[in-house]
């Protein structure tokens, strides 16, 4: 199959590749760029394990062709930590609140939550739950993911995080 040249910005770096036009963005990221933090859980846009940020929107990279991302600015989980290597507020929140277990949904969940907090810097619990409803987690039951996002929102907003009583 004839190959197509694509260029895009991924985690701040200009990248390019020669790929079949049918190559999915998630495969381009994982196979061509070796960015394996973005996972594949269903290939039908339901589970959100492949969520990346594309030009300021959360997208499921298993149903976007890499050629559709030509010229796009993409953020994957590998680009989330601070430049000095320390964990971002969300990454820290997930660890502190036990917001992950097997870790397979975590990259998509954190990338989605990062966009959510830019869309709505102080979401309430219902808004968080709706905001991550495109991302399935099989392990945590979501309760601690919600807390992790609340923890991060508080930290980013410079207010004290208060864990809701059970």
């Amino acid at each position, binding site marked *: 199959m004839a190959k197509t040249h694509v260029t895009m910005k991924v985690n701040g770096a200009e990248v390019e590749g020669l790929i079949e036009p049918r190559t999915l963005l998630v495969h381009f990221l994982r196979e061509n760029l070796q960015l394996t*933090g973005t996972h594949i859980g269903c290939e039908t846009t339901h589970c959100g394990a492949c969520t990346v940020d594309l030009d300021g929107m959360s997208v499921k990279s298993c149903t976007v062709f890499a050629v559709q991302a030509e010229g796009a600015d993409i953020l994957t989980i590998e680009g989330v930590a601070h430049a000095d290597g320390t964990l971002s507020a969300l990454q820290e929140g997930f660890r502190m609140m036990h917001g992950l277990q097997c870790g397979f949904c975590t990259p998509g969940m954190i990338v989605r939550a990062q966009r959510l907090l830019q869309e709505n810097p102080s979401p309430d619990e219902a808004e968080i739950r709706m905001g991550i409803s495109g991302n399935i987690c099989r392990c945590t039951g979501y309760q601690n993911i919600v807390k992790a996002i609340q923890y991060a929102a508080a930290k980013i907003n410079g207010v004290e995080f208060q864990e809701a009583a059970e």
Partner: protein
Amino acid sequence: MNDMTPTREQREAKLEGMGCKRKRVEDVRFTQGRGQYVDDVKLPGMLHGDFVRSPHPHARIKSINTEAALKVPGVLAVLTAETLKTVNLAWMPTLAGDVQMVLADGKVLFQNQEVAFVVATDRYAADDGINAVEVEYEPLPVLVDPFKAMAADAPVLREDLAGKTTGAHGPRKHHNHIFEWTVGDKELTDVAFSKAEVTIKEMISYHRTHPSPLETCQCLCSFDKIKGELTIYGTFQAPHVIRTVVALISKIPEHKIHVIAPDIGGGFGNKVGAYPGYICAAVASIVTGKPVKWVEDRIENLTSTSFARDYHMTTEIAATKEGKVTGLRVHVLADHGAFDACADPSKWPAGFFNIVTGSYDFPTAHLAVDGVYTNKAPGGVAYRCSFRVTEAAYCIERGMDILAQKLGMDPAELRLKNFIKAEQFPYHSALGWEYDSGDYHTAMKKMMETVDYAGLRREQAAKRAAFKRGETREIMGLGLSFFTEIVGAGPSKNCDILGIAMFDSCEIRLHPTGAGIARVGTKSQGQGHETTWAQIIATEIGIPADDIMVEEGNTDTAPYGLGTYGSRSTPVAGAAIAMAARKIKAKAQMIAAYKLEVHEGDLEWDIDGFRVKGLPEKVMSMKDICWAAYNSVPPGMEPGLEAVSYYDPPNMTYPFGAYICVMDIDVDTGVYKVRRFYALDDCGTRINPMIIEGQVHGGLTEAFAIAMGQEIRYDESGNVVTGSFMDFFMPTAVETPHWETDFTVTPSPHHPIGAKGVGESPNVGGVPAFSNAVNDAFAFLGATHIQMPHDFWRNWQAAKKLGALAA
């Protein structure tokens, strides 16, 4: 002492040992996308394999033509049953003593069965190849309903078993019969029923569902022809067992097989068994001389690898008028699909279903299980469950509610009246188990007080009255569940897999500077073993958990263990870890005595080292003992500080819990709302309360999904109609209720640290709580038992059947 000397509390806190909410070690890599899962592993020259699958649930294969596929760019090979026959691998043994086709041999027996394996340079080319394989089928009559499996005129599914009147578990009664398994005293139980003042009888179905971890099953096989060695990276919950199975069926010597289970994206029982993909990838690597990767997609996962449940349980309870149970009689019709690929300990064709007497003091009971074949996917795995314990708990917990309804008694009162009492432990159940410990009344009463059970019942009575007056269209249900689990398989006297006793193991090696590594025979899939195993060691030998690296999943380096499933890791491997640590501590004591120039008996343990009794200033820390172990051990002692333990548990452990679900249902739409869910778990000694809470949240969410809609359903023609996340209920954060957790602590008397295991309890106990809530809600309208799953549509149907819909 100067001000810099740490206090005892500070020393203890520094260890982050048992009981501490230690943050997880794993999370540092997982939150940064730096985990390494199977599909992240890439080897030079790697190829990809993918399956041609059958669209038919039952058909004869007239021909398979691979010519066109082999011409597709990138396609290198196509394996069929004929290819596999040349290496005697067209069929493989199952864990349940049956055999299973690796690739369709002459016929197909379920929709999406593996027919051919296309190997290509990448996954896209493999897919092109699949589309070019031509298979000609001749459809055969389809058997979907397990209740029709043993009809005289039922189609013959397993032609390979023609004439075989005996299977792995005794006589077969019919060509679609797999086994009959009976336990208990039939005569005595029949007498109990003939004398009973009150009896109930109900067919309680636990529908077919699927564990569906977010990462599907996958592997990467690489055969080195020069060395004759096979390396397999795979999503394996039991990597050592996989190595032994591969050795037995491939004839490759076991020491030349390297099985590596890297990070695993959830298992829930799905990743215990051996699947055709593993065999095909291994054979393809041998054939092509290149590494071959196989990755299931979600539809393949849901429709071919290992369903769970599908138990149809005719349940009878005998009781006195006052509500004292006198007998239990259960018959199970077990639908195993096309092959019995149930993942149970080998001698247990229905797992530990004989825990079905539950938390109650039944004087007598009898159980019979008939397994049958149908044209459905094979399996019967324990979906977050210790081998059919979920089915058993659902059976008895529904049964007790049905009995309470018949007696006109409150279901909580009925349970309290029949619980095994704390002083009866160890308790011998009518179906053969020795319950190690329990305090059911305390747990139940704590739950009832915490949620104000009496107040909830008063509210329900008021709502029911209001409904009857036509003032509301909402009904309210209280779902109780008091479950007893049986986990920690298991003692060698009654548990093995293919002849290998179900022990587990740990090897601890401490380095001169006081840090070390622990290798364990289990394999975490999200349970956080790297965190909790180090906590056990920290408490046992006084080395901070942060200084212990935990490694699992590499069969070349870890001691042999039976893996992680059935909540067995803490009861079995957790014990092995404690015992290995105690061996180290014993040697450390000898070294300390030598260095402190006292008799061993003059030393006592103190948090992180030994001190001389009566001389608290004379101490030797474990860190210093580590150094001494490498340069100045007592004369005659070998240097070094390491130990290995293989732990064969004397008994299972029996975690239990009291759950309650408060649910409101709109009668006219069937829409339900879980208003409150409270879960009290007793898992004995608690290693890491944060992780326990996480396990309970996750298990409850799975239980919620299963009870309220998650189903693998087939239509009458044998087509799977729930083959993707579009149709297979997978709750998001929006549907998932809020969870309240609580606990009591009744340590296991036979476990070195008193721990019992908790991972599966919420799935086991959760499902009956949800289902009982729905049934309790509808009970006053005349319902006795409404089958799961209880989605909106079925709730609406139930209301309609009861004549409760608005006119």
